[in-house]
């Protein structure tokens, strides 16, 4: 009885811990498959959802490593050129609760992959799919949508806003101006 409970607890711990801490730098799906589904640009809100086989939301969304990689790429790929550090500039703000094209990670993935009207370019060819997922997961974390235990922490540079792991959660954020 006790043993069972302890084992169960350990298994749960292992599952939660592993998923958050796993550092898979070479997701299997990407290997050897040169062909990708034909890009579909769609203007409908929410965008085209990826097929279940390609949907990597589960393995990226709450994984600390992928989120932090997303944060790095956000800077490297100059997303801040338009979106600043999430506060918005030429492009819309990413830190608030307003989503023009849906708030799910799949929608954000589609936005980055296929682009959106009024200036958001398509990065389909420019960024490998796994890294689009990382970026999408990070963008979601900007508005407190991922567990703070996995969200990236502050950078070692000038800090114009609180780090993602210290943002209020999405519900609270929506109410603030």
């Amino acid at each position, binding site marked *: 009885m006790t043993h069972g409970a302890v084992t169960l607890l350990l298994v749960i711990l292992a599952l939660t811990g592993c998923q958050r801490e796993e550092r898979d730098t070479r997701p299997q799906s990407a290997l050897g498959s040169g062909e990708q589904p034909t890009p579909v640009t769609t203007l409908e809100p929410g965008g085209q959802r990826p097929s279940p086989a390609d949907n990597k939301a589960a393995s990226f969304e709450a994984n600390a490593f992928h989120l932090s990689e997303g944060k790095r790429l956000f800077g490297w790929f100059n997303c801040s050129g338009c979106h600043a550090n999430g506060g918005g500039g030429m492009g819309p703000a990413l830190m608030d609760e307003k989503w023009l094209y849906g708030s799910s990670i799949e929608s954000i993935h589609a936005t980055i992959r296929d682009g959106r009207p009024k200036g958001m370019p398509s990065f389909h060819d420019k960024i490998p799919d796994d890294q689009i997922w990382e970026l999408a997961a990070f963008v979601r974390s900007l508005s407190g949508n991922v567990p703070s235990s996995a969200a990236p922490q502050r950078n070692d540079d000038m*800090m114009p806003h*609180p780090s993602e792991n*210290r943002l209020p959660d999405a519900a609270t954020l929506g109410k603030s101006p």
Partner: protein
Amino acid sequence: MNQRPVADLSGLPTFGHGPRSPTWWGTLGFMALEGTGFALAAGAYLYLAMSWPNWRLSAPEPNHWPGTIVTLLLIASLVPNHILKRYAEHCAISPVRIGMVVMCLFGLAPLVVRWFEFPALNIYWDTNAYGSMLWVLLGLHTTHLITDVGDTIVLTVLMFTRHGYSGRRFGDVGDNVFYWDFVVLTWIPIYLLIYWVPRLG
């Protein structure tokens, strides 16, 4: 091994005050290690202050008044504290009870003011390293303040029970007095560091 009695200990007392008691030495040991912690935190502050020519990093000057009030309260508390110590050495229960209540109040008063001291720093811990160090130093001392006030309150309650009539308990009161001195003493350099040292340069 065979034994050969050479000394008789039966006439010795069963408790002692101050350096005679092991507890006093234990308290001293913990003070030494906590004092090292304070010193290193202060050292870290000074290290950063010296690395940056524009220290305070263009942060606004803190409002020193809450800190000054805390300092005055803490220094004032030393008087009843040492009166209490004398009564504890004489194992006089009623004055010790009164003294403990007074010391509880003298402990709570600076804590209340401390609540207003944090905003008076005029900077947050996540603004820059100067703010971080200020909050760390103040937080470190506040932790000591809280634990010692908690300790004093528990001991006060204990002195009002039948357990209070024990020599050991009077020794505990003495050690509590000793530790409070330490809490007051460590505050002075931190106070100067937070409010006055940056104004020198």
